[in-house]
């Protein structure tokens, strides 16, 4: 068993162990976090030509696992996010008063999502992708149910619809091409009705999972109600898998089929998501819905990048911008949800106006929130800035001024709503004069470390731009392959 298999097998093992151990299963994260982080780091640092490690079986029978740049970065970010969220949840159990059983169910779900996400990022087989999509969705729905059953039920129905649409598309693809492998499809796909229908169905299903406007309806209620660690995982991991599968479909399997018009539809939806999500976020007066709508806006950038990647002969910049935006958003948004959870717990409310005095009472948490704000807004130095810089450069170079304008305005709108929350923390405690504005520290320092570490990583990403761009280009569909690709089936 190679370490690559371990990336999927280990979380499943942890899930089984957590189920068996019951309440003491939560300590497993102390083992899982460093192990998975180590594996993910090993994967990221593999030489570029070692992208196909498993896959000795010939296509189309074998299952191909491919560690390309997108997979490496996503798996690394996933390991960091879930590791940090898990350690945070260890110190701050995600339960409502009177629902002690919830904390127990949290852990198996986390590992299920971890296994599903890692497998989904690595596999290139459309049917396997369906399975991983279901694993992640199932875990996500159950995590959302820890907060509000109604929101989770709504999420479940919509996610089910998305899965069905995707599965139908896969079935059509099998009927038309007799294969479900992305790499093989790339060689044979042609633009006929069946293909377009299949691609359309799969895309629609995945857009629901990725919560792209106007299919985002499930996201804000599910996020707003769930406990902070669950929200962090939903925003950081669950929506990203849908996005990565779409990347596999649009730029690889069906690259020959997707025309500029279709790409601009996705780009246009992305642009609309940025504007709509930002405006909705501005209108919220509660903190968690604000952060949730910020996810709607941030997902928009990922799809706004689609036409930018396709529209140039040298897409490495836009491609890296798209991928790094996903990674930076994972880190920063997870940090922001964890910090928001601590802040809301401290003030025992969820209104932004309640946050006064927190800058004194919990400086580390507010710092983490602030650093996450910097990255989400795309201000330097941060991963968010690096991504936005690359995307904006690509948009201006292609003369796509509409997209450039949305990138620019989206950053400003993000500043408006995120700084509103941040400056509320600096205001004096409501109902007290500035002299008496002090709250006792509500939580110890340990819980604050996880959001601070994640937000710090999002900032540090800003200094490692060159290395990250290089990794993102490994085995990218537009790059010259570094190894000979497996031969097509006769």
């Amino acid at each position, binding site marked *: 068993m190679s370490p690559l298999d371990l990336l999927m097998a280990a979380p499943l093992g942890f899930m089984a162990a957590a189920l068996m151990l019951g309440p003491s299963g939560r300590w497993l994260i102390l083992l899982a976090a460093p192990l998975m982080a180590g594996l993910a780091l090993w994967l990221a640092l593999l030489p570029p030509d070692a992208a196909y490690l498993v896959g000795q079986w010939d296509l189309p029978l074998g299952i191909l696992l491919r560690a390309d740049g997108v997979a490496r970065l996503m798996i690394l970010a996933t390991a960091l996010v879930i590791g940090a969220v898990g350690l945070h949840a260890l110190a701050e159990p995600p339960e409502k008063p009177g629902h002690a059983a919830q904390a127990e169910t949290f852990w198996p779900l986390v590992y299920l999502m971890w296994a599903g996400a890692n497998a989904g990022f690595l596999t290139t087989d459309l049917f396997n992708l369906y399975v991983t999509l279901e694993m992640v969705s199932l875990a996500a729905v159950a995590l959302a149910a820890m907060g509000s059953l109604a929101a989770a039920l709504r999420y479940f129905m919509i996610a089910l619809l998305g899965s069905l649409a995707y599965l139908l598309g896969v079935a059509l693809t099998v009927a038309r091409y007799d294969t479900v492998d992305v790499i093989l499809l790339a060689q044979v796909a042609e633009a006929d009705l069946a293909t377009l229908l299949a691609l359309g169905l799969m895309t629609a299903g995945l857009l629901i999972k990725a919560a792209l406007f106007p299919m985002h309806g499930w996201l804000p209620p599910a996020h707003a109600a769930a406990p902070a660690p669950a929200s962090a995982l939903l925003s950081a991991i669950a929506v990203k898998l849908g996005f990565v599968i779409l990347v596999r479909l649009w730029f690889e399997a069906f690259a020959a089929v997707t025309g500029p018009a279709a790409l601009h539809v996705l780009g246009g939806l992305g642009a609309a998501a940025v504007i709509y999500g930002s405006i909705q976020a501005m209108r919220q007066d509660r903190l968690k819905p604000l952060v949730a709508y910020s996810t709607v806006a941030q997902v928009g950038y990922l799809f706004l990048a689609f036409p930018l990647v396709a529209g140039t002969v040298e897409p*490495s*910049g836009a491609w890296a911008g798209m991928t790094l935006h996903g990674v930076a958003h994972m880190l920063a948004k997870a940090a922001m949800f964890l910090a928001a959870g601590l802040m809301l717990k401290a003030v025992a409310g969820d209104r932004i106006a309640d946050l006064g005095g927190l*800058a*004194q009472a919990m*400086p580390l948490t507010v710092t983490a929130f602030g650093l996450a704000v*910097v990255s989400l807004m795309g*201000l*330097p*130095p941060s991963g968010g*800035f*690096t991504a936005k*810089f*690359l995307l*904006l*450069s690509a948009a*201006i*170079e292609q003369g796509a001024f509409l997209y*450039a304008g949305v990138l*620019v305005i989206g*950053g*400003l709108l993000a*500043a*408006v709503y995120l*700084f509103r929350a941040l*400056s509320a923390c*600096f*205001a*004096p405690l409501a109902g007290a004069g*500035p002299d008496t*504005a*002090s709250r006792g520290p509500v939580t110890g320092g340990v819980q604050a470390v996880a959001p601070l570490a994640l937000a710090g990583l999002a900032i540090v990403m800003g*200094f490692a*731009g*060159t290395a990250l*761009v*290089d990794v993102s280009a490994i085995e990218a569909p537009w790059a010259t392959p570094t190894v000979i690709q497996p031969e097509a089936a006769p």
Partner: protein
Amino acid sequence: MMTFAPLLLVFLPLVAAGVSFALPERLSAWRNAANLGVAFTKLLVVAYLLNATEAGLVFEWRYEFLPGHDFVLRLDRLALLFVTLSVFLWLLTTIYAIAYFDRGPNLPRFFGFFNLCVLAATGVAMSGTAITFFLFYELLTLATWPLVAHKGDDKSLRAGRIYLSYTLAGSVAFLAGILWLQSLVGAIEFAAPPDLTGIPALTLTLIFILCIGGLGVKAAIFPLHGWLPEAMAAPAPVSALLHAVAVVKAGAFAIVRMIYDVYGIGTVAELGLGVPLAALASVTILYGSVRALMQSDLKKRLAYSTVSQVSYIILGASLIGPYAVIGGLVHLVHQGIMKITLFMCAGALANRMGIKAIADLDGAGRLMPVTMAAFSVGALGMIGLPPVAGFISKWYLGIGALQSDAAWVVAVLAGSSLLNAAYFLPLLYRAWLLPPPPDRPAIRELATTRDRMLILPAAVTALVALGAGIFASLPFSPLGWATLIAEGGYLR
């Protein structure tokens, strides 16, 4: 040491920031020691750098930040002018801030961001590429926001909000302009100006407007100056710093870089962009002065005076003549020294006597003679009276205007000087010649070191402002250095 020095100027404040954030308030003595120690060390580094750079050395450190885009810290003479100013004034402002706040809530945060701010300001000065510059310029925006909103009351939070909306909008315009230019000519290095031939004049003009418009927010060019008077809600050390060294100067400095190291004076003259910018700067100079005249609050009057004075730098840069360049560059330093004096005095007056409105100044000179003497030197310098440093700036700007066939600028300078006199002299008259009102509470004795440290920095900067005027002909005077910069390339 060759590549190490610029990094040192970035890492030292980072260390001080880390220490300030980490130490709790009860260890404030250690925090103060760290801040002062770092500030002194930086001054030593700068002294070494001045010597080496004068001999012709250029310090540079680079790494590849993104493929094709280098992160470059480069200490040429222009960079060192700004670095020296900020490092020197930062030391004094640190002393002043320690005395001003003494002990209070939120000081770890304050000194932490204070140091990040100096890091950003020196970084702005040392940036060797447009992208590096943008990084530090934005860091400056972010690091100043908690300082502006420091008090946490409604007024400060509002000021912080306004400050952010102005500066972020400006940064976005600047970033768009820079990326547009980079999409045409590749990564922009200040040391090797891009080749702009073959780009349509209209495109270049639009990019210029985007960039200068974006940078003009921090430089408080009319009509983009609205945030500056609002930011007066911040504590006095912050105002001193915003006005003299950090934010407005970063904007002005960046405009100088744009004109001389990105476009080059030839292109700017060819496109006919110098005169409109000079006209806009002139409007700002006169507008700021008129508005200053209308204020009854001391800090607000000083704020509008800054709006007016910073545009002298832009005026000098946009006139494109040898003396005008020198006048603009030297004013970058002179205005900083004089304005920080005025703000530190205003803070001391408010702190020790509760004087905030101009009408309360009556008789202040008798009660706080050293403070008011320093204030008077700064005010006279702003008016442009010899031998204070401000005179040198105006003299060079005036001659420069005549050299560039822009005699109307002399009229602007004269008018501005008259207005400066009109809004500063009444203050001096009140402070020195009117008797104090009988109901004023007695002033505290200069009992503690802390009281003295509140006044000492202003006295030092006032002496420096005098010295910079009297000894202007010496090689390491601001004027001498500005001339060195101008001779080093901006006159060809």
